[in-house]
């Protein structure tokens, strides 16, 4: 009897969990479509309108992405603390250059080795 109740509980929990997961996934897709629509609408209206909490807008603290050198610094601090410690010791123009190169290439490995080389090897 107890086993039956337990089984029912787990079944209903699994179903609820599944529905919740589906809802989350659906919601995320909706956010993405809203972002795409906002991009398209800007060509017609000249205005970009999207909820500021959208996970498809780059924000330094969201983990969603990196759009400026501050965002890049926050990203390093969160994801690569060792590299961050070295990065913040570089002068700002060098940091900007490394950030811009990362934006063009998307090569984080090269950014890391450049930071290290600029601080130690090239001196």
């Amino acid at each position: 009897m107890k086993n039956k109740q337990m089984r029912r509980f787990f079944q209903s929990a699994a179903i609820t969990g599944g529905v919740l997961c589906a809802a989350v996934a659906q919601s995320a897709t909706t956010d993405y479509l809203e972002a795409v629509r906002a991009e398209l609408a800007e060509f017609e209206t000249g205005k970009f309108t999207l909820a500021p909490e959208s996970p498809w807008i780059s924000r330094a603290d969201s983990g969603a992405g990196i759009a400026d050198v501050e965002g890049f610094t926050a990203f390093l601090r969160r994801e690569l603390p060792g590299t961050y410690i070295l990065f913040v010791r570089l002068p700002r123009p060098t940091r900007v250059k490394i950030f811009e190169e990362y934006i063009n290439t998307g090569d984080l490995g090269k950014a890391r080795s450049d930071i290290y080389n600029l601080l130690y090897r090239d001196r």
Partner: protein
Amino acid sequence: MGQVMDSKRAGGRIAARLLSIIGALAFSTAALPGVPKDLRIPTGEVSAEEVAKQVYFANHFYAFKNFSIERSGDTMAVLVTRTPDGRTSYTGVERHLNNEYDDGEIQARDLAIFHSGQSRGMGMLVTDYVDDAKSQNYMVWLPSLRKIRRFAEPAHDEMWGGAVFTFGDVTLRKPQHEEHEIIGKKRFRTCLGVIEEVEGRTMRHVDKMPKRACRHVGKEVYGLKSTTKFENWWYDYRISFVDTRTFADYRTVYFKDGKMIKIIDRDWGLVSDSAEGDQRALFWKYWYGVELDSGRESWAVIPQSVVEFDRERRDSFWSESTLRRLKR
């Protein structure tokens, strides 16, 4: 006899699926007289046709003599597909493109080797000809049959199972297949799409799947509206967001009867900051696609560590004998 026919049919099915996978990860090698491999970077005001040609140039890796997505141990490109019921599958692939032909006959050759998934052990060599009227030659090594099969060029709208990219999207569509119009210029504002369930997660072949790419936020893009010339086609027009400097097409949105039906996002990266002195010397870091009516998603990811270009390699590498040497 029946068994032979069955095995032939199975081979055909496998090859068709293989063709589709390649479409999803392909370097496009289709020829176009109007888009020479030495196409210059435009200066001043650019026409819509010129933008379309430049996009074609970037997508065909014409900035390189040859371009490879190598295999380093188990690291290589991976194509992940997610069906609406939440099932995901993946395929690992190694690819080599050769643009360096000057015999006046061959435009480019493209070799793909599959290392995981249902197509494991298979290989494909695509030959593209300078003569635009001549269709591409597809040669597929089928390990289960231990034979090479030759196929004609696939249909533009052909796609496979879970993958949402068509051959037209990545290999076959040429600028002259559409009419182009620039609808504006603006800053790109949002991050590129990903399959959220696997974003940042551990995945075979790439160690970790990337997070959504937001590096392109703030870059100036053209809105390029391309209306198909094909009748009764699966889309009426598409709008691409094209970088005004590099001609990388970050996003393409497809419309049918005024309704958005499909989106393809592409994360691009320069091979190195000073590569070739050509801002179009780019490679795909990932492709993401979603079909809005079915909800199917595909995500092809290429790790930068296995990208090589302008490497010294004999032409004979792009030949039937390489296919025959493949082991399952």
